[in-house]
Structure formats: structure tokens, C-alpha cells
């Protein structure tokens, strides 16, 4: 059909990111997961506008009511609106997940890059540090360090302490992933080329090596958020996490430890439980699809 002599401009190039996104969209579960997580995020961010009730305000006339039109998820034993508490609790849970993972990713990335790039004594030191941190059972050390951290941060607010502790204790896995990748990439000719052009070590690490580590980094971050949410819920359930009356999904479920609430007021603990499960499962679906999408071997 077309004239063969006309030089045809080839289609615009697909960046590696664009190709990964195309592969990601192929997974239905991941797209649903992304939608659910987005919904949770909207509920959490917009909580003050969505909830008609104050999550902390007692209403003794409407105590322990099952779900109604006014109170969608019912009320608890002091008359607080469970829906309001659930979405405000989502704020806490998601924030803990995000902040803890941001901290963990930042430390892990820098430690991994430095360790792999410089090698030698630095590498040995960082790797032994990761060994030490990874050899503790996480729940135990987290429970032990939360009061200490809260004290150090001189805040009654244990949320800060939880975020700091989770962040400070989960970076070693990422540091190892990044270190391994750095060891491979730093030997490539294009890093040598950058060195020969006069690029600083920082530039070599962050401009040339780091982008090659983005795939494991994003997968780690996704699963990390889910894990941090679960950890926070677990800690709050054990009474070590977010302290009442501030709602979090964990401490709302914790109230079900009382047999009376477990049997007679199921709506107060089923809602936060389901929200936790949906969020964590959705994030894990996203993580799975992401891992496949960024794998250069897949098409």
C-alpha cells in the first residue's frame, strides 16, 4: 500500500516504565486491588467530610446500637459511631504503613547503595548490622522498643514511636536487595563511563545505579506497607500500639477480646477487621502484579 521509499518515522518509544505499566494492567486482581486501596485512601483522607459523627464523642443515649440508617456500622458501648471510628482508624493505619515504609525504604536504599558501592569494611559493617537486626524476632523487639522510643521522642503519642520502630527495624531486607543489585550494576561499562566523564560517586550511585534497583524497591515498598499495617494492627491488638481513645483498626478489633462484645456487638469489630483484610490483600495483589510487571524477563 504505502510507498516504500518514504522514510517512516517509527512509533514513539516505550519507556521501561510504560512497558511495566502495560504488563501491570493485565492483572485483573491488581487493578481491583489498586481500586480498593484508592477507595481506602479516599475514605481515610476525606474522613472529616465523609463521617457525620465525631469518632471520639460518646453518645450515651445511643449505646450499643446495631447498624441503622443514621449509624451505618452501628455504635459501640459508649455510643461512638463505628463507621466514623473505622475510617478515622484507617487514617492511622494507612499513615503508619506509609510513614514506616518511607523511613524503611530511605534507610534501606542508602545503606544498600553505600554497602554495595564502597565494599570492603563499609560493606562488612553494614551487612553485620543487618544480621544483628534481622536476628531478633520482630514482634518482641518492637514491643520492647516502643516505650523506649516514645520516651526518646518525648511524646505520649505512641503512633510516632510505632512508625519509627517499624521503619528502623525493617530496612535490612531492602538493604540486602539493593546491595546485591548494586554489586552487579557498579561493574557495568556505563557506570565506568560515568566515572570516566567525571561524575561524582553520589551521581554514579543515585543516577545510574539506583534506577536499576527500582524494581525490587517498589515490590519491597508495596509488601512493606501491607506488613506495617498488619504489624500496627497486631501491636494495637496486644495493647502495645495506638492507645485508645484514638481509633485504629487494631485497637478496635482488640475490644473483641471481651466476650460480651465478641458475642453481642459483632458490628463493632467486624468492620475494622474487614477493612484491614481488604487493604492488606489488595496491597499484596498489587505487589504480586508489580513484581511480575517489573521483571525484565516477562514480556
Amino acid at each position, binding site marked *: 500500500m504505502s510507498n516504500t521509499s518514504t522514510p517512516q*518515522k517509527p512509533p514513539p*518509544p516505550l519507556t521501561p516504565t510504560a512497558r511495566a505499566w502495560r504488563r501491570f494492567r493485565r492483572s485483573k486482581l491488581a487493578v481491583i486491588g489498586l481500586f480498593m486501596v484508592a477507595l481506602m485512601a479516599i475514605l481515610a483522607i476525606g474522613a472529616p467530610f465523609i463521617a457525620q459523627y465525631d469518632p471520639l464523642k460518646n453518645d450515651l443515649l445511643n449505646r450499643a446500637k446495631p447498624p441503622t440508617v443514621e449509624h451505618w456500622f452501628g455504635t459501640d458501648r459508649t455510643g461512638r459511631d463505628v463507621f466514623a471510628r473505622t475510617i478515622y482508624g484507617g487514617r492511622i493505619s494507612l499513615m503508619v504503613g506509609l510513614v514506616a515504609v518511607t523511613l524503611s525504604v530511605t534507610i534501606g536504599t542508602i545503606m544498600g547503595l553505600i554497602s554495595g558501592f564502597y565494599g570492603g569494611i563499609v560493606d562488612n559493617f553494614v551487612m553485620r548490622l543487618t544480621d544483628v537486626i534481622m536476628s531478633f524476632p520482630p514482634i518482641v523487639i518492637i514491643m520492647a522498643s516502643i516505650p523506649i522510643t516514645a520516651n526518646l521522642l518525648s511524646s505520649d503519642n505512641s503512633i510516632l514511636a510505632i512508625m519509627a520502630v517499624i521503619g528502623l527495624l525493617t530496612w535490612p531486607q531492602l538493604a540486602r536487595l539493593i546491595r546485591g543489585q548494586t554489586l552487579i550494576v557498579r561493574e557495568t*561499562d*556505563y557506570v565506568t*563511563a560515568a566515572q570516566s*566523564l567525571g*561524575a561524582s560517586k553520589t551521581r554514579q550511585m543515585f543516577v*545510574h545505579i539506583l*534506577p536499576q534497583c527500582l524494581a525490587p524497591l517498589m515490590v519491597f515498598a508495596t509488601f512493606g506497607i501491607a506488613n506495617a499495617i498488619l504489624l500496627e494492627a497486631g501491636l494495637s491488638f496486644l495493647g502495645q500500639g495506638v492507645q485508645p481513645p484514638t481509633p485504629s483498626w487494631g485497637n478496635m478489633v482488640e475490644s473483641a477480646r471481651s466476650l460480651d462484645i465478641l458475642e453481642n456487638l459483632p458490628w463493632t469489630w467486624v468492620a475494622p477487621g474487614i477493612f484491614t483484610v481488604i487493604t492488606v490483600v489488595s496491597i499484596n495483589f498489587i505487589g504480586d502484579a508489580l513484581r511480575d510487571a517489573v521483571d525484565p524477563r516477562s514480556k
Partner: protein
Amino acid sequence: MSNTTNGNKPSALDGTTAEDLLRVDNLVKYYPIRGGLLQRTVAQVKAVDSVTFSVKKGETLGLVGESGCGKTTVGRTILRLIPSTSGKVLFDNKDVFSLNGTEMKALRKDMQIIFQDPYSSLDPRMPIGESVGEGLLVHGMRDTRKRNDAVMEMLKRVGLEDYHAKRYPHEFSGGQRQRIGIARALALRPKFIVCDEPVSALDVSIQAQVLNLLKDLQKDFGLTYLFIAHNLAVVEHISDRVGVMYVGKLVELAPRDRIFADPLHPYTKALLSAIPMPDPTLRRDRMILQGDVPSPVNPPAGCRFHTRCPFAVEKCKHQEPQLKELKPGQFAACWVAEDQIQKSQA
């Protein structure tokens, strides 16, 4: 710098060092092999063992040898991309190994490298325009528009189009990538380029294009090349002088025509006789070497080539020959060749 006229240093070739852009003096690179519980050094890979040569301004020095003979290590050590074990490199009368960070960065503008493998020498996550402009950026050209103009000019100069700048390396062929690598090295307008087997990963048809491009650029920019290769035909095409390496040592260094017409070192002779001739009826005596290349961890005593040399005499096993000017401009490290020439002169 005064000329010591001891007659066995190749740098004495021209009587003065004034026009030498690069002088490499007894360059040594050993890689430690660590072992045992305490990770002590148990042995050393003698990748480059006391190599001395110089490169004149505007000249192309070809460096040939088998795989693993230390050619690439020489190139990278000169540019201080690998730390040297000992020795001295003078570039533009500056002692490269004693410069501090700032001075070294400034010097990097003048000396660049082109790599063998066009697939691993470009950052796969960076549009090639950025790769080409990176040198300009790190040396302080922050103005994006000015940098883009310089990049476009460079891309056109190596035969690419400006719309290529936004593309990623995987969208180019091997030959195109090699051109991009050349553009990146040239963007800083260096004086000296180490070409580390720049065409050996390319198709034969593309090799000629890239070689001619390199020659044109040399003329236009007044470049000096250290051209590392294992293909003698390629070296013959581009070099003014040729150095031959064997197990970490320079065994012969001579003007191109002398190397190809009248090689002195038996190893050079063997290499030359391995060049395939495009004439099946031609009969010739090929010099086929026996045995394997000795390990650079434990090189033979005396002349390193004596284990495979058909002319080796007793002396070769014990005494190491030095690189000497046996014929005008032609240096070789060989006892047998030295004796022959002395006899013919006597």
C-alpha cells in the same frame, strides 16, 4: 624533561618528550588473590607488569595481544578507572596518579574511553541524549538548552539524528549504540581517547563505518588514540604505531609498517601468520604456537614467551629480555632477535 639516552626506553624514540601527550612509565597492575581464613593475599594476578610506552600528540597507538594479556587493564589504569599498583603516567606533563579529586575531575575532560560492548556501555534507563550530555552536565554546563544544542551537534557529527536524543538504548542497533558511545566520549572535546576494542562486537560491515568515523573525528578534533584490539587487520587500518602485549608485558613496539613488514619478536611473527588471507590457493608457512598462554598468576621465569617460542635458547629461560630499540624506531624484547641483529651488524 631531559633525555636520558639509555637507548632502551621507547620514550627516547623521538629524543624529546615535548610532543608526547602520554607517557606510561613502568606501569604495574597486580590483582590480589585472597584466600584462607584471614583473607590474606595468597597470590597475585600480574595483569600488567612493568609496561612502558609513550603516545605522541595526534598519533594512534594500536595495542594488540590475546585475550587476558592486559591490554584493557592498561587502558583503564591510564585513565585511573582502576587503581594502579605502581608506575607513573604522565598526561600532558601531569602526573595522573598523584592528582587530587578536583584536579583529576578536571583532567577527565581531556581523556575519555570508548567501550567494547555497545550493549552494556549505555545506561538502559537513560535517554541517550542525556547520556551524551552527562559529561557536560557534571562539568558545569547547567543550562539545559545549551547542553541540548551541544548534544544535537555531537549526535549529528557521529551520524545520528536529533530526534534520536529522546530514545532509549534498546531502540538502537549495535553500530548506532557504538556511535552514541563515541558521541558521549567526544562531547567533552577530549584530547585523548582510549578505544577499548571499539569495533570487535560489531558486524564486519559496520566495523569499517565506525573505524572510518573514528579516523574522521581524529582529523577534525586533533585526537590522540590508544587503540586496543585483537584484530590485526583493524589495527593495521588505523594505527601509526603498534604495541604487542604478551602476558602483561610489552614485547614489541614499532611503527605500523615495520610491524607488518618485518616483525622482530617471534610472538609478533606468530600473530601475523594467524591473519587469514582471502586467497585459498596461497600456500604459506604458518607459525603455529604450541601450548597454552601461561597464567599471569605464575608467569614463566626469564622471557615469558619462552615456553611457546620455537626459537628459544637457554638464556631465554633465565634472563628476562628488556624492551630495546633493535632497529631505528623498532623496539623488541627478545634475546634471539637481539643476537641476530648484533651479528648482522658485526
